[in-house]
């Protein structure tokens, strides 16, 4: 496998829309790199430029040691995996995997060797003579990956491969993709609009917004300290509570006297927006904290999400399933845990250290 470098990638379409703006990315060898963002953020265009399905307006793409600008997709040694279920139903597992090599008119001995190698790595040997309909979802996915592997690509490019699956299968397949990528030590660039998928899969996540890189980091870095309000709103469900606050003596203080631990790097009197995760609030019937009223209660089985109205706004609070509060009940709301990141209200960028 190989590294992938994207340098000053710029893509403007003939109608004038700028899909990607001067984007720089360095994807490491053996990394599962996720590009995350809403539709229109430029993630798919970037992937298509790497694949050679779109021509960049300016900038450079390097796969391994080779600058691939101008090369056709088939000359780039990459494997695109779109939909995991795009297998040929009438062909056996062996023939499905051999297909790209037959199309490239490779000699029979090489085909056999490559298919055997992929089948061994993916533990598909027992299934080689079966047709896809006789396989489970996870096995079919491995076949699809095997078909991409036989060409010995330098990287796998995946464009929302799990989007059309139902929720159950999607969760299973997610674990399968992650397991295989780590076992194969494959370089994988994975595009999705689903923040759960991005968190679960990525070694690193690139959050994109309007053709620009909004934040780049490991999942927990992005979760714990979103670089901007855009990233804060995009990662996590229910989303981060965004609260107008002022830096007072060692605290962030919001309307109604709500106090949160102040993060480093702010000056006294500074007005900020604090980003508090739902699990960093707690509620109690009586006790410390500001007064709030339960607006709604979502018992999800393993946990309960309460929506609480306080003077400082409407907050989502994540509590254990055993927490019992009724709608309309008046409760005490308190911040717990680490200091929240703080954002400048004008630039919307993180300003705390």
């Amino acid at each position, binding site marked *: 496998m190989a590294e992938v470098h994207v340098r000053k990638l710029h893509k403007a379409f003939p109608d004038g829309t700028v899909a990607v703006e001067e984007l720089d990315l360095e994807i490491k060898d053996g990394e599962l790199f996720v590009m995350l963002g809403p539709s229109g953020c430029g993630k798919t265009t970037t992937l298509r430029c790497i694949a050679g399905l779109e021509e960049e307006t300016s900038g450079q793409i390097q796969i391994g040691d080779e600058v691939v600008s101008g090369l056709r997709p088939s000359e780039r040694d990459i494997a695109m995996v779109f939909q995991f279920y795009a297998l040929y139903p009438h062909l056996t597992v062996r023939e499905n995997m051999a297909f790209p090599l037959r199309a490239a008119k490779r000699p029979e001995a090489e085909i056999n060797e490559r298919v055997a190698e992929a089948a061994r790595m993916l533990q598909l040997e027992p299934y080689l003579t079966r047709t896809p309909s006789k396989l489970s979802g996870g096995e079919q996915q491995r076949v699809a990956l095997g078909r991409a592997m036989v060409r010995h690509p330098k990287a796998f490019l995946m464009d929302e491969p799990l989007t059309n699956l139902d929720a159950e299968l999607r969760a299973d397949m997610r*674990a399968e993709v992650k397991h295989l990528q780590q076992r194969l030590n494959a370089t994988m660039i994975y595009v999705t609009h689903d923040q759960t998928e991005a968190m*679960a899969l990525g070694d690193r996540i690139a959050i994109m917004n309007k053709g620009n890189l909004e934040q780049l980091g490991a999942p927990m870095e992005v979760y714990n300290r979103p670089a901007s309000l855009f990233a804060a*709103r995009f990662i996590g469900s229910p989303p981060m509570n965004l609260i107008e606050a002022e830096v007072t003596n060692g605290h962030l203080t919001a309307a109604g006297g709500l106090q949160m631990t102040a993060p480093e790097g702010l000056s006294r009197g500074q007005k900020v927006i604090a980003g508090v995760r739902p699990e960093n609030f707690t509620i109690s019937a009586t006790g410390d904290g500001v007064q709030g009223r339960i607006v709604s209660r*979502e018992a999800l089985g393993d946990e309960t999400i309460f929506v609480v109205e306080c003077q400082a706004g409407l907050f989502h609070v994540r509590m254990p399933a055993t927490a019992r509060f009724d709608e*309309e009940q008046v409760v005490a709301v308190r911040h717990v845990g680490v200091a929240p990141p703080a954002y400048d209200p004008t630039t919307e960028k993180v300003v705390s250290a």
Partner: protein
Amino acid sequence: MSRAIVAEGISKSFGDVEALKQLELDVPEGSFFVLLGPSGAGKTTTLRVIAGLEKPDTGSVYLDGIDATKATPAERDLAMVFQSYALYPKQTAAENITSPLRARKMSKSDIDERLKRVAELLHIEELLNRYPAQMSGGQMQRIALGRALVREPRAFLMDEPLTNLDLKLRVEMRTELTRIHRSLGSTFLYVTNDQVEAMSMADQVAVLREGTVQQVGSPTEIYDGPVNRWVATFMGSPRMNMLECTANGRIEGEGWSLPNPGFKVSGDHRALFGVRSEDLSLDVRDEATSLSGTVYAVEPLGDRTLVDVEIGGQRVVIKAPPTATYTVGEPVRAAVDMERVHLFDAESEQAIARR
């Protein structure tokens, strides 16, 4: 509590397809009642039969205790809300909302009065002069809801109204709908295939599969005590882990063995051992009630980390704290909360009771 909507022995076929098979439903007045099931379960057909848009082959529909099986949709006085908003593009939000009242030739002052109340309830005062093209999906859904509310019907029937909204709006609208339900105190019969919507909004849930009701209860009752394997895996995310096993004095599967916490079985009973991801823990205190396996994948989600573990060739998902760090292939032990495990018969897939 009186019974707002009752369906008795409803069957309905479309050609060779039996959509509903002797379906029974009892919706208490003022409840937020959710019909939950996958596509093809018969949820929408049930709703349409209750609304009078579909005639059942057999069975009866009672509204407030009165047989309404032969009543027209208008006579039933139920308001439907669909996933498509179906707003008139050339009418303002206010005109869209009041269209059912204008059709009824209600007086201008009464119409204005009702519009005002609905607009306040839905927080849409500032949208009233806008046209559908000037509104977001979430705003249009509110207007569609307003058009149903303004009629002040006997009950509301809602068919996957949040499906077309993005995740963030869906989360917001869930809160909104429970708030609206509470302020109105009316009966909501709500259809969805999304178990999170059912868990988060419903007072009562009826889980539907292939035209029959599998289980009725509060979300927590169903989550904690599913009657069969199908309901157990449909309700909850991640879905309940299932391991093939043989149960007798102990519960044993390939590569694992646990004491039987009191399930009533005789002989070596072939079964499925069910345990939710939050009832497994990688922090093992008592090896006697733990399973050993190897880490298959690790999925950090921010507020939690899901650890996929392979146990004797089968996989389970374990909910771990966000700080958990494991590597693929690492051997681990998972503690089982034996108070919260389930056992299902391998053949009938029905839950096996405890002593």
